[in-house]
C-alpha cells in the first residue's frame, strides 16, 4: 500500500502546486512551449527571452486594455510527451492561446487543440498545408511557410539573373527529414514553369557532415545558385564547407532556419558568411522601434539589456510571436468588450489581424478565416560587413502557384 500512499501524496502535492500557480481571473494566460534544452536549444534560448520581453513590455504599459498578460512557459525538450503534458497544464490553467513548439509537437496537438477550441501558432514549422484555415481552424502558421519561402527564393534568384532563369542550374540542399523536403514540390513545379534545371542534395541527420554534397554542388553539378534549407547545427557546417570550396556566398540563399547569428559565429565569424543571402519572415537587426522600447524598459528598471538581444534573428522572432499573440488577444478583448474571452474569441481575433507590421519588424500581415499564413511575405537580408542588410522589401512570389499546390495537396 506504500505505492498507493506515495501516489496520493504526489497527487495532492501537484494539485496544490497547480492551484498555487493558476493565474487569477483578470489575467489573460498564454501557454508557451519552449525548447531551452534538447536538440533545438540553439533557437529556444534566444527566442523565448524575446517572447517574454515583449510580454513584459506590454504589461509595463498597462497590458491589454488594463488586463495583464501572463505567459506561462514550459520547456519541452523538443519531445512529444512533455508537449502533451505542457498543453494539458496550460489548458487547466485556463490559457486562451497555446503556442506549441516544433513540427512533431504541432502534429501531435493539432487535433486536440481543435477539439478544445484553443488556438495556437506554429511560426516557422509545421507543414505548408496548415496555412489553410478551413481545414485547420485553430492552427496559425502566421509566418511564410516553407513553400512560400522556396517560391520567394526562386523569385530572388530570377531577379538576380535579370528575370530569366532558362537553362540555369539551381541546387536545393536540404536536411533530410519531412520539414526539409517540404520545398521539393514547389521546386519541381517552378522548375517546369521557369525552365531552370535543379537537383536536390539531401543532408542526412544530424547534418554535421556535408563535404560531399557541397563538393557535388560546386564541382560536379556546378550550380549557378544554391537554395539551402538546413537547420539545427547544420547551417554552420554548410557555411564552413562553402567557404572552403570557394563558392561565392552571394549566390547562396538560405531559408529561415539557416541564417542565425549563432550559426555564423559557429562557422567562424562574419567574414565567412560575407555576401550570404537569408530569407526572413520577421525583420532582423536592432533598428526597430519596438526593440528600442524593450531596451528603454530595461534601462528604466536599471538593468543591462539582455545578451540575447544581440542574436536578432531568433530574438526578433520571439518578439514577433509575442506581438501576434497579444494582438489576437487584444482584438478578442476589444470585440467582446471584456477580458472574459475564450479560445474561440482569440481565434477570431487572430483572423482579424490586418496590416499589422509592428513598425516594420513584420511584413504587412493579412490573416483571414481562410489564410492562416498571413500572405506568405518574406524579406531577404544579406550579410554585409558584420551585419544583416535588407536587400529587398517585403515581398511574396508565385502566390497563385503556391495556393494551387496547396489545393492539390488537400485534394490528394
Amino acid at each position: 500500500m506504500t505505492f498507493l500512499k506515495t501516489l496520493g501524496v504526489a497527487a495532492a502535492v501537484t494539485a496544490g502546486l497547480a492551484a498555487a500557480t493558476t493565474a487569477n481571473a483578470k489575467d489573460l494566460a498564454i501557454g508557451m512551449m519552449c525548447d531551452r534544452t534538447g536538440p533545438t536549444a540553439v533557437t529556444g534560448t534566444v527566442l523565448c527571452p524575446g517572447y517574454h520581453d515583449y510580454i513584459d513590455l506590454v504589461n509595463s504599459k498597462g497590458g491589454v486594455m488594463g488586463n495583464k498578460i501572463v505567459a506561462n512557459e514550459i520547456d519541452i525538450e523538443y519531445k512529444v510527451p512533455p508537449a502533451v503534458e505542457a498543453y494539458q497544464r496550460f489548458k487547466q490553467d485556463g490559457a486562451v492561446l497555446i503556442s506549441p513548439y516544433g513540427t512533431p509537437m504541432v502534429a501531435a496537438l493539432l487535433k486536440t487543440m481543435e477539439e478544445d477550441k484553443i488556438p495556437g501558432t506554429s511560426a516557422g514549422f509545421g507543414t505548408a498545408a496548415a496555412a489553410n484555415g478551413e481545414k485547420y481552424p485553430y492552427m496559425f502558421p502566421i509566418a511564410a511557410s516553407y513553400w512560400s519561402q522556396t517560391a520567394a527564393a526562386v523569385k530572388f534568384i530570377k531577379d538576380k539573373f535579370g528575370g530569366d532563369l532558362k537553362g540555369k542550374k539551381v541546387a536545393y540542399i536540404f536536411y533530410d527529414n519531412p520539414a526539409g523536403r517540404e520545398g521539393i514540390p514547389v521546386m519541381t513545379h517552378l522548375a517546369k514553369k521557369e525552365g531552370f534545371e535543379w537537383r536536390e542534395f539531401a543532408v542526412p541527420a544530424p547534418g554535421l557532415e556535408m563535404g560531399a554534397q557541397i563538393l557535388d554542388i560546386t564541382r560536379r553539378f556546378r550550380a549557378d545558385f544554391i537554395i539551402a534549407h538546413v537547420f539545427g547545427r547544420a547551417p554552420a557546417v554548410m557555411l564552413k564547407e562553402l567557404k572552403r570550396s570557394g563558392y561565392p556566398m552571394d549566390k547562396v540563399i538560405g531559408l529561415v532556419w539557416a541564417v542565425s547569428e549563432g550559426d555564423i559565429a559557429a562557422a567562424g565569424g562574419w567574414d565567412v558568411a560575407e555576401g550570404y543571402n537569408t530569407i526572413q519572415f520577421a525583420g532582423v537587426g536592432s533598428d526597430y522601434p519596438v526593440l528600442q522600447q524593450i531596451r528603454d524598459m530595461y534601462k528604466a528598471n536599471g538593468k543591462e539589456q539582455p545578451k540575447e538581444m544581440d542574436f536578432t534573428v531568433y530574438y526578433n522572432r520571439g518578439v514577433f510571436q509575442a506581438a501576434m499573440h497579444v494582438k489576437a488577444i487584444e482584438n478578442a478583448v476589444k470585440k467582446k468588450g471584456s477580458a472574459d474571452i475564450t479560445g474561440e474569441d482569440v481565434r477570431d481575433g487572430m483572423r482579424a489581424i490586418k496590416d499589422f507590421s509592428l513598425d516594420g519588424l513584420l511584413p504587412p500581415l493579412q490573416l483571414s478565416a481562410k489564410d492562416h499564413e498571413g500572405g506568405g511575405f518574406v524579406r531577404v537580408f544579406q550579410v554585409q560587413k558584420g551585419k544583416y542588410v535588407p536587400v529587398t522589401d517585403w515581398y511574396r512570389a508565385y502566390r497563385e502557384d503556391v495556393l494551387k499546390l496547396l489545393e492539390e495537396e488537400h485534394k490528394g
Partner: protein
Amino acid sequence: MFHRECGYYKTTYESDQAILPFPIAKQAIVGFLILFLLVFPLFASEYYLSQLCLVGIAVVGALGLNILLGYTGQISIGHAAFMSVGAYTAANLVTRIEIFGGPLPFWIAIPAGGCMAALVGLVVGIPSLRVKGLYLAIATLAAQFIIEWTINHSPSISGGAAAAIEVQRPSILGWHLNDQWELYLFVMFFAILAIIATTNLIRSRVGRALIAIRDQDIAAEIIGINVFKYKLYAFAISSFFAGVTGVLYMYYFSIATYEQFQIVVSIDFLAMCIIGGLGSIVGTIFGAFFIIMLPVMIRLVMEFIGPWFMDPSYLPQVIGQLRLIFFGGLIIVFLILEPEGLNRLWQNIRNYFRVWPFSY
C-alpha cells in the same frame, strides 16, 4: 502487519499455481482496479488523466522491451522503430480501408499494427543467434535507422512529403472516444491486457525458456531448448508489444509521424526497463511512471520553491537546465543505491513490513 504468509494451505494444484497466491494480493489488485478504472476517470482532472494515458502507453512498450531485455537478455536499441512500424501500419489501414461504413475499427488496427511490427522484429532478430551483447545492440541500432529511413523515404508508407498521417480517434460502435477519460480507459484497457499477458507469458513454457536463455544460453541449448527459435519468439513478442504501443500513440495523438519514434525514444524505453528493474513486471510499471512523471514533478517543485531564492523572471531559464541536471542525477543516484531498480526498492520495503514490527 497487514498480512501473514503462513496459514494458507494449498490443497489443489490450481491454488498452488495461482498467479496471486494470497488473498491480500487479490484485494490489492481489486483496490488498484477500482482506483485506476473508477476513481481516476471520475475524479481526476484532465491534466492527470492525460499524464496517466502517457504512462499507460509507455507501460505497454516498456513491458515489451522488458520481455526482450529483462527476461531473454537480448538488448534492443530499435524499440521505437518497431513502434513506428505499428503506427504506420495501422494509420495506413485505418485511412485506406473502410468497412461497416466507417474507417477500420481499432480492434483490427491494433493487432494488425502489432503483427506487422512482430514480422519486422523477426527479421531484425535473426542476427541475435550469431551476435550478442554490444554487437546485438549495434545490429538493432541499425534497424532503428533503416526503418526510420524507409518510412521517411517511401511516400506510399508515410503518406507524402510530410511523413505524417492523420487519423480519427478510435470509436466503439459509432461512439468516438474524444474526451480524455474515454481515451484514458481505452489506453488502460490495453495496458492491463499487456500486464496480464506478460505475467502469464513468463509463467509459461516459452517464458521459462526465455529465462533459461538469459541465465546461460549454452546451458539452455544443452538441456534441449532451441535457442534460435526462442530468441526469435522473444523478438517477435517484444516487437508486437512495441507495435501496439505505436498504434496507441497514433490513436492518442490522432496522427502517425515518424518524428515521435526516434532513437531518443528507444533510449527512454531502455531507461524505463533498467531503472524499473530488469525482468520484473511491477518494476516496468514503476519505470514508466518514473521516467514520464519525474521531469514533471521536478518542474512543479522547482516552480514552487524557485521564487524563494531567485528572481522569478529567471525561473523559466533555469528550470529547464535544473530539470535535466536533477533528472540525470537522480538516475545515477538510483542506480548506485539500488542497481536492481525500483522493483528492488519496492521488494525491500515489502520485506521490511512483512515481519514488522517484529523484525528479529
